């Protein structure tokens, strides 16, 4: 008698194969906490916006239960560090405020994320990861920034990631953010007030998560290229356009 020895019709339930699990959807916040983020309350608004949208993010994740949304956060100033280092299920995701100080070493944060997008630790059965970069400035070291993008593109899941970028205030360099996105069909968003910032963060953590978690096979001549997930447009009809930042 073997482990598969039950009656096929009426016996105990035994299922062939190894462990079955939902497909992980890794979501990374990549946040600027350089000194300039203290100006005009940008840092406080960023903290508030992320915390405020957590319930909506959970709802979005529940709408596609076959995707297991796992959240992490890395911040950058004169260095880069994990704010949430472990893969945190969205239902357990809570936000503790970050403070601002230092330069804008965006490259170090991107390198940290790129390291996590290797296989392993990533699984080949994962859904395309979502990377959301937010900054109010420009990369302090352009050369290293370019190098970090190469690192990101050199790992399979880095290349296949859905990359979103949100500029915070008019000091944000949208060209830099566009380079991070690396997809001409997707433009960086620019938030010039707190309402817009909340709207964009909500969009990234709900609409984008929903789109990726419900991603469908897409014909492509070269399946090694960027993820071809249809990202819904952000709705800004009722959002204030008063320029504060």
């Amino acid at each position, binding site marked *: 008698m073997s482990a*598969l020895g039950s*009656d096929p019709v009426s016996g105990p339930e035994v299922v062939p194969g*190894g462990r079955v699990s939902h497909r992980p959807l890794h979501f990374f916040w990549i946040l600027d906490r350089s000194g300039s983020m203290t100006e005009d309350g940008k840092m406080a608004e960023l903290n508030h916006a992320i915390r405020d949208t957590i319930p909506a993010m959970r709802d979005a994740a529940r709408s596609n239960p*076959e995707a297991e949304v796992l959240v992490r956060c890395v911040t950058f100033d004169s260095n880069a560090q994990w704010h949430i280092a472990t893969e945190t299920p969205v239902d357990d995701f809570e936000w503790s405020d970050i403070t601002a100080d230092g330069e804008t070493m965006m490259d170090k944060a991107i390198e940290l994320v790129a390291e996590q997008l290797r296989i392993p630790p990533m699984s080949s059965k994962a859904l395309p990861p979502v990377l959301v970069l937010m900054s109010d400035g420009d990369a302090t070291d352009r050369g290293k920034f370019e190098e970090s993008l190469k690192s990101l593109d050199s790992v399979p899941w880095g290349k296949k990631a859905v990359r979103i970028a949100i500029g915070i205030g008019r000091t944000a360099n949208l060209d830099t953010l566009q380079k991070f996105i690396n997809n001409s069909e997707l433009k960086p968003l620019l938030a010039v007030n707190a309402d817009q910032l909340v709207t964009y963060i909500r969009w990234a953590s709900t609409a984008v998560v929903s789109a990726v978690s419900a991603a469908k096979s*897409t*014909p492509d001549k070269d*399946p090694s290229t960027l993820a071809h997930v*249809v990202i819904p447009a952000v709705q800004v009809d009722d959002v204030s356009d008063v320029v504060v930042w």
Partner: protein
Amino acid sequence: MSDEHPESGVLQGHDPVGWTLVKSSVIGSSHVRNGKPNQDSARSLGERDQLPVFLAVADGHGSARSFLSDVGSSLATVTALDVLLEFYERELRNLEDTKNLSEAIRSLEGTLPRTIINRWRTAVDPVSKGVLFNYYFSKLPRTQADERREPTELERYMAFGSTLLAAMISEEVLVFLQLGDGDIFAVDHLGNVEFPIPQEETLGEDTFSLCLQKPEQFKVRVVRLNELPKQEWPVLICLSTDGLRKSFEDEGFIQFAKDVVAFAKEHGSSGVQAKISEWFAQYSRNGSGDDVSAIMVFNEVALSAMPFPIAPSEAVADDTQSTHEQPVDDLVGVDETPSSSLGTQSSASTPPSQGATTDLEPDASHSVGHEESESIGDQVLVADQIPNDSQHEGPLHMLGRLISPMQRKKN
């Protein structure tokens, strides 16, 4: 030639002398929730206990732009069986000698992918010009400037976009064709799991597709079987859509292949057929959420010759809904040698009666001789490469391979 029983998918009531087909196509849990149809198709053709057998599975893309991909995948499997059957009737049914077999393989290699794509297009065309198509197309989100334009040629075929995996098992050859994601695997009489078409490390949802109309993206593998004893033919050949693999973690898919053979050994292939749809629904619900489809062909001769019991899985799918009933102490013949990493082959546990190593190296009667590599159209036949270290490898590994143009470029 007749199709199997439409209800069961099993060639019923045969002695363990032939080949048994088992198949299932289960709608994905996410599709049920969203009111979408099953976009997979699984189709087979074969006489009871006899070869040849023809198999095809296809996975419609299911995105908004592929709004008729359930139709596209169904037409894909019909087309594949049509083309393979026609090829068999023309080239293999009255085959007289090995020379003719080589010519038949050349013919297959040079024409089948293109023929399949052309016939699929021909099958799709009338539907793509109908009112229903235009209705769906008009509902796609588009910019105002785009609103009234006609669909491009790519958009027409994209609406039906689908992968395709197909196989023919005859007395002489195994033929495998694959375009896009999904898996073709074989399990030999020692429990080794082999992928006759090497797996590409593709990530995310992008895939090759019939709608791109690129015959060179087909991967084709032909294996000569006619000089191997049937006991050494694969015990199981399976074609599956990616909803199956993506439901498992890591090596869980390889374990699935081994466990299914173990289950068939104990309960018969009819036992597999009785449970397979239930398993697939569970995989989808607790795993990928995608449609899950597979066609399995069990070689009853080789299955009955396998030692029993076969090393079972130590990991059981599912969270709370299934249980691993058997105490570990009761397991017999479990070889703790870990499986090799996912490549073209993963070795399995070796039953105690077989010993740690098994001589699979063919003797003179098995060998089909050493031939020079030769070009066949756009492809290269590397015939009969039998490395000295092949004794752990299954028959598919021993009997040469066809390399598609894409693989050749990489090499």
